[in-house]
């Protein structure tokens, strides 16, 4: 009887040891053909950097002033024509401390919205852009509406370059009175890349 006990216990101990061995083997198995190799590291780091800033008149906002008569078509933003040679002073500046040409993207967060939640649709807020400015550029004829997704609004502007904007607003006849606001975003990306979300 005692002998049977001993065998039984020995088998159990063997099973425990075998299981522990398998656990170790499964998780730390090292099968090596003793192959060795020698390597040298080759390394190169490609750095990209870009920086933009809004010109002061753009950073203070795009304002259309008071509108008394409706409907109103192509209302000029305040700084559309107040530069030299009646050029625009709405601009985005690409820093000289950039090593890549930049595409500019712009979008609005929402429709122009009043505190009482009346809206002027984004289709009515349009802009045009150009890398130079005078009485005609950026041109009203090539204006496009702002959207809530980023859209390219300046292509391959070199370091140290400027991109000028003009903004216009249409207000329908039946628009309720009030102050309407939204936010327009300007984003710089490496040229040829998509604007992203």
């Amino acid at each position, binding site marked *: 009887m005692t002998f049977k*006990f001993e065998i039984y*216990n020995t088998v*159990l101990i063997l*099973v*425990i040891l075998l*299981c*522990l061995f*398998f*656990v170790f083997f*499964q*998780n730390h198995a090292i099968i090596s053909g003793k192959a060795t190799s020698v390597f040298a590291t080759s390394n190169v*780091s*490609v*750095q*990209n*950097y*870009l*920086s*933009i*800033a*809004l*010109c*002061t*008149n*753009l*950073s*203070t*906002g*795009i*304002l*259309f002033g*008071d509108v008394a008569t409706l409907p109103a078509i192509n209302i000029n*933003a305040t700084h559309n024509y107040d530069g*030299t040679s009646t050029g625009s*002073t709405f*601009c985005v*500046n690409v*820093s*000289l*401390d*950039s090593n890549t040409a930049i595409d500019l993207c712009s979008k*609005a967060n929402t429709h*122009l919205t009043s505190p009482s939640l009346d809206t002027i649709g984004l289709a009515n*807020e349009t802009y045009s852009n150009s890398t130079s400015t005078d009485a005609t550029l950026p041109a009203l004829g090539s204006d496009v509406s702002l959207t809530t997704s980023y859209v390219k609004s300046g292509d391959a502007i070199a370091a140290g370059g400027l991109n000028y904007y003009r*903004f216009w607003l249409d207000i329908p006849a039946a628009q309720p009175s*009030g*102050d309407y*606001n*939204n*936010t*327009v*975003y*300007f*984003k*710089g*990306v*490496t040229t040829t*890349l998509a604007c*992203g*979300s």
Partner: protein
Amino acid sequence: MIEKKVVKNLKIFSLALALILIVLPFVSAGVGISWDKETSLIPENTKTCLTYKVYNPWPEDSTVEIALSDNLMEIVSYIQSESVFVPKDTSSKNAIPIEFCFKTPNVYEKDCFLFNKLLCKQDCIENMRIYEGEVEVLEVGDQVKGSGAGGSATAVSVSAPLRVKVQCVAHTRNYSLIYILIAVAAGIFLIINLIQRRKKKDKSKVRK
């Protein structure tokens, strides 16, 4: 004669000032981003950190925040979102590093025996999953600039592309759990045996 000279100097000064104002339009606080990595190969279910640098070569201080595009947000578990102050005239050479960390999800199918989680093996026969998006640095100094009198406030940002390739790590089925369960069961039987044996010994001693 002297008056004429003063007037002439004033004219030259005014002209130079006008030229400077025309050539160099005033700029607000700006934002810059510097990066040296656009693709990252990371095993699934692994936490990793990436560093981007921000700078501000413009003549006004700025405060910036780092953000990820929506399609990258689905694999991000943590991102440092505090605002970072970037002093004016910080060149790209002196850019300030901002680190953000994220954990890649389990995206590849596993062949599991138990509860879809235990005793799994992974063959990695699927195509590599790639998440493409961008790291965006936003200037948040005066956040919403503009008047309350109607119109659009403006904000500025720059972005760098980022592609996260999630690597599948192939492995065979791991039977460790079964081995451990067998070892525990054997251990329990062993203890029961030893206890029973001691009890029998004690009983036989009492009889004697």
